[in-house]
């Protein structure tokens, strides 16, 4: 019974960490380059999260089978090599489904091969856990990333041009500054601060 409760708590913790407490975009600052540059409209953001999710999930899943007996120098090359191999079917699939989208995200698609989930976090977090927990952790980290990117891009597009997914919302905002990388940095900083404030408020209310 106690073991079962421990497991439940552990799973809840993994889910909460991926989505909220250690959200890759709003808290940990992971894989933010494509968000800063490309997530200035909702349509490109959808493509971005599709590309990120495919490459990151399958690369980490396959990489988890790389034996630890291989020296780290070689393991890190193998992880990125697996990422580059996973990129091939991913780009072919997304080109078939959304050909214009692949063109829109340009060089950021292959750059997911060396994203920090794969290079810096794979060994220090994901591969330390059992396979089941690792899978759950990866999935919820990816969902946390995707959700944050989609919300961020929607708000950014509304602020920058008053549209969402290219459709006019009727909001009279046109802060063009948010279309550019510098606007992306500043807005993401404000988002991260707002997110932290909300978490703090929730904690206080719960106490």
């Amino acid at each position: 019974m106690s073991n079962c409760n421990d497991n439940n708590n552990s799973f809840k913790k993994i889910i909460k960490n991926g989505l909220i407490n250690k959200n890759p975009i709003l808290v940990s600052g992971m894989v933010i380059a494509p968000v800063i540059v490309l997530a200035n409209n909702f349509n490109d953001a959808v493509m971005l999260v599709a590309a990120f999710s495919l490459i990151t999930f399958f690369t980490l899943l396959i990489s988890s089978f790389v034996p630890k007996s291989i020296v780290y120098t070689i393991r890190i090359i193998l992880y990125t090599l697996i990422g580059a191999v996973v990129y091939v079917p991913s780009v072919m699939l997304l080109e078939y489904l959304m050909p214009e989208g692949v063109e829109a995200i340009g060089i950021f698609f292959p750059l997911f091969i060396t994203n920090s989930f794969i290079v810096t976090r794979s060994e220090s977090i994901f591969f330390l856990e059992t396979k089941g927990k690792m899978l759950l952790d990866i999935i919820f980290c990816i969902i946390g990333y995707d959700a944050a990117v989609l919300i961020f891009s929607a708000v950014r597009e509304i602020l920058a041009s008053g549209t969402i997914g290219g459709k006019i919302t009727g909001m009279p905002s046109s802060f063009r500054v948010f279309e550019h990388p510098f606007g992306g940095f500043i807005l993401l900083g404000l988002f991260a601060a707002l997110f932290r404030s909300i978490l703090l408020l929730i904690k206080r209310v719960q106490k």
Partner: protein
Amino acid sequence: MLKNIILTAFTAVFAENIIFSGALGTSTLIIVSRSRKNLLGFGLSVTYITALMSVLTYFINQALSFDEKSYIYTPLVYIIILGAVYILTLLCMWRFAPEMFGRMKKYIHISAFNCAVLGSLFLISERCNTLGEYFIHGIGMGLGFVLAVYLTAIVYDRLYSEKAPYSFRGYPLLLVYIGILSMAFWGLSGYTLKF
């Protein structure tokens, strides 16, 4: 000739700074700027890898230029070559500079496998034509990354200071700071906002 070299290098370091204009390698910058101790070594290794890889990229692109669909497997070729450069560099350091090897082995993998290095190679491939341009852009982008890391590292303690409001302390403030610097660098390249 010299004028062109200076202009290309200036463009790569400042006007098209890899972090401030393209945000490439921002996650790596956040990790590295935490400590000023190994900043120089890290910066030099990133510059060395981008410079060497940019030259090799020129030859890779020449070899793959016959195939229209090469963009599908080009990243794989880049990673194979980057992996070879990384191993050879480690072996040379271990053999000829064991002290340096001891100091740098902890973070040399981050300096080789990150979005700044891979992104530089893709950007250089898009923008450059000659071997010389590839090389100068490679060095410039590496130095541009070093400049960005340095500018962040010098204020790191202040951004994470307890004097900063809790909601903004650390990461959020770091992003706003990079955003303001980025705006200045865009201004440097002659960009003006249209209101």
